[in-house]
């Protein structure tokens, strides 16, 4: 069964035809060639496939594992992937902070972590260590040991606060 779907990704409108049993993750990577969103476990455990989504009628973007969303569900939704985090060649403060602190090693988990950390800072601009750890429970990193990721999120929170000042 195929579905004709209209939705936006990073502000761009798309019309695609997707199979019932395909996931948003598959659509992003295989049909739209947005391969920054990674396929790690396809079981909702690793967080590498996280994207931001605003459902029709919802007031804000929320992170979801795109491996857990069926393609036909996203009709009318707005989606932000890692490719949409930077604007006009201006990196998101989180991306800057990940570079400066060396929070990335192999990089496979990084897009999902950036997406989830961005969602965290949007709902809680000044998170504690414990709140950052809790927010990133569903993002597995096998390289870094997480310490620099925590440092990066804290640095980005400071940068964002200073930008608002």
């Amino acid at each position, binding site marked *: 069964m195929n579905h004709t779907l209209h939705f936006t990704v990073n502000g761009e409108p798309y019309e695609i035809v997707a199979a*019932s049993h395909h996931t948003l993750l598959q659509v992003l990577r295989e049909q739209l060639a947005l391969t920054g969103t990674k396929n790690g476990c396809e079981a909702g455990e690793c967080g590498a496939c996280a994207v931001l989504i605003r459902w029709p009628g919802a007031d804000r973007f*929320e*992170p979801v594992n795109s491996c*857990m969303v069926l393609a036909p569900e996203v009709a009318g939704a707005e989606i932000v992937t890692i490719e949409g985090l930077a604007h006009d060649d201006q990196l998101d403060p989180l991306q800057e902070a990940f570079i400066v602190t060396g929070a990335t090693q192999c990089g496979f988990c990084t897009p999902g972590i950036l997406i989830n950390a961005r969602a965290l800072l949007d709902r809680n601009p000044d998170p504690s260590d414990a709140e950052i750890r*809790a927010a990133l429970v569903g993002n597995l990193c096998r390289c870094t040991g997480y310490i620099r990721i925590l440092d990066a999120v804290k640095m980005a929170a400071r940068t964002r606060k200073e930008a608002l000042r």
Partner: protein
Amino acid sequence: MQPFDYLIPGDHAEASALLAAGNGRVRPFMGGTDLLIRTRGGFVRPQAVVDLKGLPGMKEIRPGDDGWLIIGAACTMNQVAMHPLVQARYDLLVQACNSVASYQLRNRATIGGNCCNASPAADTAPALYCLEAVAEIYGPQGIRRIPIAQFFVGPGKTALRSGEFLTSLHLPPSPQDARGVFNKLGRTKMGDISVVSVAVYRRSGRLADPTAPATGEWRIALGAVGPTPLRAAEAEAALMQDTSPAGIRVAAALAAAAARPIDDIRASAAYRRAMVAVLARRGIEAVLADLSAARAQLPAAGGAS
């Protein structure tokens, strides 16, 4: 994933008819966090999934009559945990919802799905057992309501019959002086499936006067230590008599005795039983501490103890 169709029913009756006609090969679909994993693994092979989320009321949290609260079955864990009416009176359920997996998975996983999968380890179940929630079911014969403890029938088995689906969970009024604590053990501190979980809930009835005779109720529910979640009735009764440190130890032991755990990949039965006693004791102590803190904040007239 093997192909299946995705169907959006126009109303409750159509959803019911689709499910009934599918004879088990047509699956209700909400957050998909369990169904998609099991489909990928080949454990279930649906011909079609019926997305129930768009049906009226399924994603709503609203006050019912007489102080009840109605939570639509397709409300996500985050939606439940962040809702002011849930936070105001059902903190136990907030704790349980927040203990499920990760933030972004809680944006998909639904409270109804958690019940319908009927895992003995379902994290919201011990809280719903303590709150004595009522499950509202829609089916070919119309609407029926059953206590949550009758909804869970066995591992992966619910009271749902052909063509039926869960529409909402109804929570009885929870008084202002009620307190609950949910504790769970997983392989990791956060985010993992429960190896054992215990919810403790106290409807005090005597917050203002701790010297009054014991009234109200203690309720204790256990997760992941039986074919369904379980209430520990003898432990509850014991606490009505004695909440001294010795009484708490007795109640915790009775809670462990009520468990019917099995050995499996995550833990041995003996370990699970021993941990029920520990989590029950911690839960009871935390509830008592909460109540005594609440008492201390009352105006001096009522809180002098």
